């Protein structure tokens, strides 16, 4: 029978594939650096490839998925703690970097390339260093709301005029989790809980991710939402009817989320890891990230930015102790935020 001739062939082919492919490259002559990154691959890969071109060090990038859709890379780092594969963790926010420090997975490293970066965006013990930042902004649909009608504070999303019109990503994950912890840190427990309960009572919707917030607001299904500047910029570049507001300029300020780079304790390629960190913290990288679709704000005032990217000194950043947000977030994720999500999702 034809099938029976085909099957052994298919089996042999699969065996060849396995034998040929599963013998991985060992440590070659070429130096290597392994980078785990929770920054979107679309933005991270060009930078990593630039490092490889410039230094000749082979850079192996392991990008993360959206946290809400699969068990993320941080779990892999935690599970690999006894014999890490990663040299560097390039985090999209400082809270995950602080989690690594809390769990004893990071090593201190003061990079000479960090000169000029503000100290408030770095760990005091040099376990992580912040650079180019995103901000948490209010995104609104310009077909449904004029600039004058748009909210200027996140707290306004509990206002009855936005009843059933506002959305927010699941605050147990990603930058929304950090934003929630920041609100608790700045507003205090009672007022922050009042905000979240008011948001839900006002018919606010909890979506799976910031990207989903962008899509729903751009499509007009929601009028306003809270998302990150890079999400907003993607919608802007696609010509969607959206605008962004950096909230609370006169109040608590806007949450600023710098990238954070961490050297992994016991990294197999420690020196190459340090070189990658030096590369990442250069003003040039901040410029590239500002010019990319991520539209990230450089933390150095001296770096020139395109017209659509705000400089850090043009907004009022929320005053945060990023190191203290990690334990606070852990407490909130097991307590109020988990219960709030459980109460308000189906």
């Amino acid at each position: 029978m034809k099938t029976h001739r085909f099957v052994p062939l298919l089996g042999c082919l699969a065996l060849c594939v396995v034998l040929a492919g599963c013998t991985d490259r060992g440590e070659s002559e070429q130096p290597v650096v392994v980078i785990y990154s929770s920054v979107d691959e679309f933005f991270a890969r060009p930078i990593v490839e630039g490092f490889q071109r410039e230094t000749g060090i082979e850079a192996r990038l392991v990008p993360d998925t959206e946290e809400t859709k699969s068990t993320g890379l941080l779990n892999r780092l935690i599970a690999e703690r006894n014999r890490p594969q990663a040299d560097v963790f390039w985090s999209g926010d400082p809270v995950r970097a602080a989690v690594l420090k809390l769990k004893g997975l990071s090593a201190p490293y003061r990079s000479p390339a960090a000169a000029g970066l503000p100290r408030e965006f770095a760990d005091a013990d040099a376990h992580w260093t912040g650079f180019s930042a995103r901000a948490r902004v209010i995104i609104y649909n310009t077909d449904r709301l004029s600039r004058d009608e748009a909210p200027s504070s996140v707290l306004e999303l509990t206002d009855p005029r936005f009843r059933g019109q506002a959305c927010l990503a699941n605050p147990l994950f990603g930058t929304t989790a950090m934003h929630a912890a920041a609100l608790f840190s700045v507003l205090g427990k009672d007022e922050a809980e009042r905000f979240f309960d008011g948001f839900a009572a006002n018919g606010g919707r909890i979506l799976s991710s910031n990207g989903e917030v962008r899509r729903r607001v751009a499509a007009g299904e929601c009028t306003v939402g809270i998302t990150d500047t890079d999400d907003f910029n993607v919608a802007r570049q696609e010509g969607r009817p959206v605008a962004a507001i950096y909230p609370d300029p006169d109040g608590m300020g806007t949450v600023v989320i710098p990238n954070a780079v961490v050297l992994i304790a016991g990294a197999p390629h420690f020196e190459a890891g340090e070189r990658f960190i030096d590369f990442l913290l250069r003003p040039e990288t901040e410029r590239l990230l500002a010019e990319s679709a991520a539209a990230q704000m450089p933390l150095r005032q001296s770096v020139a930015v395109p017209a659509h990217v705000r400089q850090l000194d043009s907004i009022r950043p929320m005053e945060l102790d990023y190191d203290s947000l990690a334990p606070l977030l852990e407490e909130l994720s097991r307590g109020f935020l988990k219960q709030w999500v459980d109460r308000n999702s189906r």
Partner: protein
Amino acid sequence: MISPMLLERPGSWRWIGVTLGFAVALVPTLPLVWRAAVATDGFSVGDAFVPALGNSLVVALSVAAIGWIVGLPAGVLGGLYAFRGRAILIALLALPALVPSFLWAIGWSAAALRIGTGASQALTGFPGTALAFCGMAISVVMLTSLATTRSLTASQIDAARIAGGERTVVVQSCRHGATTAGLAAGLVGVLTLSDPGPGQIHGLRTAAGEMLTSFSALYDFALAGRQCLVLTAAVLLLALPAIAMAAPRLSTQLLARQSRAPVLARNRRVSRIAIGLLTLLAFLFVMLPLTGLLLPLLAGAEILATWNALTRTGWNTLLYAGGAGLAAVTFGIVMALLAGRSATLGAACLAAGLALFLQPPALIALGFVFVGSDAPAWADPLLRSRLTVCLALATRLFPVALFLGMRAWRSFPSSWSAAAAVHGVPARTFLRRIVVPMFGFPAGTALLIVGLLATADVGTVLLLHPPGQASLPLTIFTVMANAPETLVASLCLAYVVAAVMVLVLIHRVVGRIVH
């Protein structure tokens, strides 16, 4: 000389072998199960887990029921009649089984957003989650029913036709395939329980979503392990009685032998019904979500970026699929031979196989990561390589090969082994000339099914792939959050085209099912 009767000999060695086999498969889950067991905070699974489990079970049962009700007649009609566009319609309807569920969920969500706010809100929660899974359920049940119908003998079909015309042929064929189709629908239902994607995208709290929260928001591996154990126990409680009830019928059905292959009949009235049904299903469950997924391409395609992603990930994608398929088939067939013809052992294998299916990919993958992290560097080729990804995928998916292998072995008359033994045929010759060709078709089918399921399993690849060795679905997953929609749509198109190419391969080479 070893006698071929060895394969038929009962004994405690079968139980020992099967137990050892499943023990090996369960080893990777032990690190996390152990953490769950020794946790100091009792056996709490969290307040929200039980309602979420309820939601998951409702989704699983609905998906299985819809898949069974719709997929069974579609498969039977496709297996009995020749009609215009048959091969294309069947290929289209097979597509949902080849593309990861999260892509269908995104496709539905995007299509609904284009249709309007009402459609989008209507899909929120249960309807959207169930719809995203329904395509896969219908696809798998349809293909299973098609294969079951094609296993009927021509004389059986002729007899039914003479007794009551086309209606009787269709009804009796549906009855013939109902149990196997039910089992296939049940398996898809079980697979939905460990898949968090569609629930997260459409805003439904599910058990898999809760486990994901325990892993990714709380970093509480012990809680995730406990939740997983509860999920497994709940499903086994529900599934075991069904398996017990279905087993006798399955055995009867599986032992039927084909003597004369049936020919596809031509009947204008039934053909119209078949075309109408299959076209409607293809439109609803394939074209609609696919349109939502690919519509951004109207604004232009990102050809260069897609090509770069393909060249970077294509080989690894093939390798993970092929490697997982091969490992799963080898292990599954050996286990099927060990299970032999014992009904009790067969039921035990079904239950244990279902339990393995239920494990969230992260549980097995993180187990491998823990073991790899504690093992010495010389074990890296086994525990930290692309081979590890294949083994981890095969560990969870080998029950597919086991079930198909058991089916093949039980449809094989034991008198053949006896006859071979009486005539002094050596076991080696018997295996080479009779057993291996007989296992060829189920092994090939299992290789393809496991390969496809492995390709769609993003979680395992994310946690285990060696740095720089990602797969295409993982790449789509990692860029879809923030990349422009045109790039995501281009990558999705590349994936769908690859899936179609696999379908063409199946159609041309393993055309026995379709023709």
